[in-house]
Structure formats: structure tokens, C-alpha cells
């Protein structure tokens, strides 16, 4: 079905089920319980999960398949956001033209940057992409202020033309982004017992787009083109002496991953119509590298897992402050409680980067294949135990 093998199809269905049920799955704790702060099932964060999932899926097509490590992919995300906001300013608040334009503009940017950067490989390629991204960031921040609105960031205003829409609503406020009339911020709330589940139109749009993006990535992975990209990573010399030119293959992969980044940028702007230069900064480029490696570079599902993991940490772990910690450790004697809180303090709240960094190090050292490898090892462990149980059973049977 859908031109996929059995395994890939079940993976796609699994991801589809998980994303569709995310508002339930990410809200396991009742709203009034102490653990409610670990709930991630609110629209804003769920949108981030899937949008950065798209970003990482695209990045993985370049890095995971060809091995070319780009340190400038945030530039395409930023360009996509600016393109989308301009569409909201000039055309209409419908997200479809905005998203289409952001993908196209990011693709054009990726073509230009990739054409130059791919003249080199290895660390030189990484440095070139980093240089381009930082140039884009600096330009967006200063010289290109007429287009990007500099430090303030590009926002929609009451006097924007919006030729296919309205400049302002009847009550004189700024119109909101919508998908053919369905407002992106529209949210249905379902209360069941102590639980509260939120279903946001914006999240479901992003989730559907991510499923399409994920599906296309599977097709690329399984295609002759994907095989060529893996061959580029494996042995360029053999590739050239087999009658293949690696350059257009890597450039195509670069442009495709740039378009994925642009799509993510366009969706970010569709959920919240503003775009700032900081989206293009090198830390943002580094983040997608972390996501991909943490989840498992070169695997299909890894980047999505990595993106979810990092975004969860960024948004949930960072909210744990000392008051929360004191609450947790209140059962300890006073002196000990303060001591434990002091120890834990650097790892949570503003210090969440420390925890993330340690986890990243642990994954890279002990699980070079990322979280996916971790999952595979656990699965293998279970299978082996099952197999040895059966083995033992088989051995015991004759003895009876």
C-alpha cells in the first residue's frame, strides 16, 4: 500500500496513530495532580514537536544519507518564516500560500548556498554552511531591516494590504491565520474526569503535514536516489568510477532538506505569525544536528524522536524551579532537603542545557546509533530472553 514495504507501512501507521492521539498520550497526568507540569499535551508544545520533527526529518535526508553535516540549516528555517509572514502581510491570512512560498524560497536559497558549499566536503563544507547561515542571520538582523524588520522581528500589522483578505477584522483587530476558514488557534477542550485534553486545529494541520513529510522521506530512503545518497556517504571514489556524478546528488539532497526546513519555518509562522532573526542563529542550526544525532542519524524515525525529546526538555524541564524541587523533597529533613535541592538545582530550570548535554554525551558514547539504537538493543534483549526461554523449554521437554 502507498508503494511502501510492510515494515515501512507499519512504521508510518504507528507514527500516524501516535501523532493523531498525541493530545491524549502527552497528557497522562490529571490537571490537578502534582505531576501535571510534566504534561506536554498543550497545543503550543505539540506544534513544536511536529514542526521540529519536520525540520529534523529533512536534515536527516542530507546528513543521515549523504553524511554531509550542514551547520547552517536554521537559515532555511528562518527564510521560510520570513516568506510566510510576508505572505500574511501581502496576500491573505490563509496558511496554504504562505507555506508554499516558504518552501519555494527556502529551496532557492538552498540551491544557491548548496551549490557553493558542496564544492568542499567534510569539515570545510560544515564551515561554509555555518558561514552562510551566520551571514544570513547578520543580514536579517541589520542590513535587511526593510525586509526583516531587524531586531524587532517581522510581524503582521493593521495596515498590511492583504489583497485577498482583509487588513483588519470588523472589530478593528489583526486577523488570525486560518486554513480555508479554520482558525489555527481554534482549540477544542475535552474534560474527562480529572483530565483535560486539548485539540488544536493548528496542531492537527502540522501533524498532517508532518505525516506527508515523513511519508515522502520514507519514499526517498527506499528509492534509487536514496541508495545513491548512501553510496555517496560510503565511497565517493567508487561512485565516480562507477559512472556517477556525486555533485548533483548531494545538491539535490541539500535542496530537499532545505525545503523541509523552509516548510518547518512556514509552519512556525503559520502557528504564530511572526519571524525573528534569532531563528537563523547558529544555535538553532546546532539544535537540529543534536536532534538528529540524539534520535539516530540515518534512521527514519530517529530525527522525529530526537526533536520531540529536545523540545520536551526545553519546555518542561526548564520550568522546574526551586519551589517545585522543595515540594518534591519536602519529605526529607530540612537540612538534607536544602542540600538535595542545591545538588539538583543546576540540572533543572535554566540549567536544563546541562542535563541535555550530559544525556547527549551519554548517547553519543554508549549509543552511537541514537535513541533508535537504544530501542533496538532493548528489543533484541527481550527477543533473546524469549528465545532462550523457548530453548530451555525445548530442552526440558524430552526430560519429562
Amino acid at each position, binding site marked *: 500500500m502507498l508503494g511502501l514495504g510492510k515494515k515501512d507501512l507499519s512504521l508510518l501507521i504507528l507514527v500516524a496513530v501516535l501523532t493523531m492521539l498525541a493530545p491524549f498520550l502527552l497528557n497522562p497526568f490529571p490537571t490537578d495532580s502534582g505531576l501535571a507540569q510534566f504534561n506536554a499535551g498543550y497545543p503550543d508544545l505539540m506544534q513544536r514537536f511536529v514542526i521540529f520533527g519536520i525540520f529534523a526529518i529533512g536534515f536527516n535526508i542530507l546528513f543521515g544519507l549523504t553524511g554531509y553535516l550542514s551547520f547552517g540549516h536554521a537559515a532555511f528555517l528562518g527564510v521560510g518564516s520570513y516568506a510566510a509572514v510576508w505572505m500574511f502581510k501581502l496576500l491573505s491570512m490563509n496558511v496554504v500560500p504562505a507555506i508554499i512560498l516558504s518552501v519555494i524560497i527556502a529551496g532557492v536559497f538552498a540551491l544557491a548556498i548548496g551549490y557553493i558549499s558542496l564544492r568542499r566536503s567534510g569539515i570545510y563544507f560544515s564551515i561554509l554552511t555555518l558561514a552562510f547561515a551566520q551571514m544570513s542571520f547578520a543580514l536579517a538582523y541589520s542590513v535587511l531591516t526593510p525586509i526583516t524588520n531587524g531586531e524587532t522581528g517581522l510581524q503582521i500589522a493593521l495596515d498590511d494590504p492583504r489583497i485577498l483578505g482583509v487588513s483588519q477584522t470588523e472589530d478593528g483587530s489583526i486577523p488570525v491565520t486560518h486554513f480555508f476558514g479554520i482558525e489555527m488557534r481554534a482549540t477544542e477542550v475535552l474534560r474527562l474526569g480529572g483530565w483535560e485534553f486539548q485539540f488544536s486545529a493548528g496542531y492537527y494541520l502540522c501533524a498532517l503535514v508532518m505525516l506527508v513529510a515523513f511519508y515522502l522521506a520514507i519514499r526517498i530512503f527506499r528509492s*534509487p536516489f*536514496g541508495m545513491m545518497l548512501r553510496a555517496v556517504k560510503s565511497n565517493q571514489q567508487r561512485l565516480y568510477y*562507477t559512472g556517477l556524478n556525486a555533485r548533483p546528488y548531494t545538491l539535490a539532497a541539500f535542496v530537499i532538506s532545505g525545503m523541509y526546513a523552509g516548510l518547518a519555518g512556514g509552519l512556525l509562522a503559520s502557528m504564530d505569525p511572526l519571524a525573528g532573526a534569532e531563528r537563523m542563529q547558529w544555535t538553532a542550526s546546532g539544535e537540529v544536528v543534536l536532534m538528529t544525532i540524539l534520535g539516530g542519524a540515518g534512521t527514519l524515525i530517529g530525527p522525529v524522536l530526537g526533536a520531540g525529546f529536545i523540545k520536551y526538555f526545553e519546555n518542561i524541564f526548564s520550568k522546574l524551579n526551586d519551589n517545585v524541587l522543595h515540594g518534591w523533597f519536602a519529605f526529607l529533613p530540612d537540612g538534607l532537603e536544602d542540600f538535595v535541592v542545591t545538588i539538583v538545582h543546576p540540572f533543572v530550570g535554566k540549567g536544563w542545557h546541562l542535563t541535555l548535554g550530559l544525556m547527549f554525551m551519554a548517547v553519543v558514547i554508549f549509543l552511537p546509533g541514537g535513541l533508535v539504537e537504544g530501542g533496538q538493543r532493548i528489543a533484541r534483549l527481550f527477543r533473546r530472553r524469549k528465545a532462550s526461554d523457548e530453548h530451555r523449554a525445548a530442552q526440558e521437554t524430552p526430560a519429562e
Partner: protein
Amino acid sequence: MGILDVRDVNKRFGGLQALGNVNLSVAENTVHAIIGPNGAGKSTLLNCLVGKLIPDTGSVMFDGQSVLGRKPYEINQMGISRVFQTPEIFGDLTVFENMMIPLFAKRDGSFRMHAFEGVSHERGLIAEAEKMLDEVNMLDKRDFHAGSLSRGDKRRLEMAMCLIQRPKLLLLDEPTAGMARADTNNTIELLKTIKKSRDITMCIIEHDMHVVFSLADRITVLAQGTPLVEDTPEKIKGHPKVKEAYLGEAA
């Protein structure tokens, strides 16, 4: 006129004359060996044939067309395949995938954006790849990672990858270098079968005289960048000049 004609080729690296007035003609459907002591310019000559190096002067014609100034992948598309001294294969890919890539290169040219049809739908090519693997006795290793194969199997895979493209000319750069005797003999047998079973011209650079004398139809002896003699293996064996420059030196 042979299928490959090298005329007056010179190549200099700084003060070193690596190749001096090399003339060489390889006749179609023969095995032509190039031998010579270390530093004789064998590898430089080979690199000039495949586009890795460009000679300072002279011409290299293949099948009526000049190869000079063409990129390695363009030269491969003209019908020249190359086997390297240390097997160059796609180590991260499976044996089967290693066979599919040259097939795609042959059918689709140096670049084609085939991004949405699955590899598994290419029934014709898959059958062709499996047939070739069967021919080199590697069908049982179809789904192995190529990087995990033994040295001898890697060499066999590399040759199969070259042969599946049906090249007019197969260049072999010391195909048995560093191999155990048994592996060397296997390689010789494989090359003999290849020679018998299809129309192919081979050009072998080799150190091992056993390999050369059991395969070659003609031999060119290279010394200090210049061809010394070119003749049949029987004549070469007894040639005084060769004994002096090559065999004598070895003894």
C-alpha cells in the same frame, strides 16, 4: 588501431619524469598486461587512462574518442571500468545494493532523480544483479554488509560491479596485491572465466609474474616511465632486456 591507443604520453611531477613518450596499443578482446619494477610509472599511466591525471602531452584514445580532459564518471560512461589495488566498494551498503548502483549508473547515466519509485520495483535490474552475483558465487552473501566481507570476496564483488556494466575495457590495478596464494589462484580462475565467457578487453597492471603469465595475451614492460618492450608472454620471458631491467633486478 586497438580499442585503446596511447600516443606519446608524457607526465612530469616536478623534476620527476613519471612517463616519457609512452606508446601503447591494446587490441580488442585481449588481455594486455603492463609490468615493471616499482616506480616504473604503471599507476601513473593507469591514472591517465581513467581521468584521474591528465598527461602533459600526448593523446589517449578509447574506441575512437579522446578521454583526455574527461571526468572519471564520463570515462566510465564511455565503457571503461576500473578495479582498484585495494577493493573499492560501498562498505556501508549490502552486497546486493553494491550491484544495483552500477546497474542504475549504466541505465540512467551519471545523474537521475529517481526519488519516489522504490528500488524493489526494479524487477529487471534485480534479476540481473542476482544473476551476476550467482556467476561470481556470491548469491548466498546477497544481504551481507559489503564492508564485512573477506578481502577476497570484496575483490570479487568489485569485479562483479565492474562487469555488470558490460564495459568494453576493464582496467585492473594489481588485482592480487596482498592476497594469499589461494585467493590469488581464485582470482586468476575468475579472470579466466570472465575472459572466456564474454567479449571484453582487459588491461592488467601486476607485480605477480604468475598472474601475468597465466592470463596475458600481450605484455608491455615499463621501466623508468618508458615502455621497454612489448611482446607475447613467451617472448617476454626470455627477453634479455627484460631480464636485465626487471627480472634480473628482482633476483
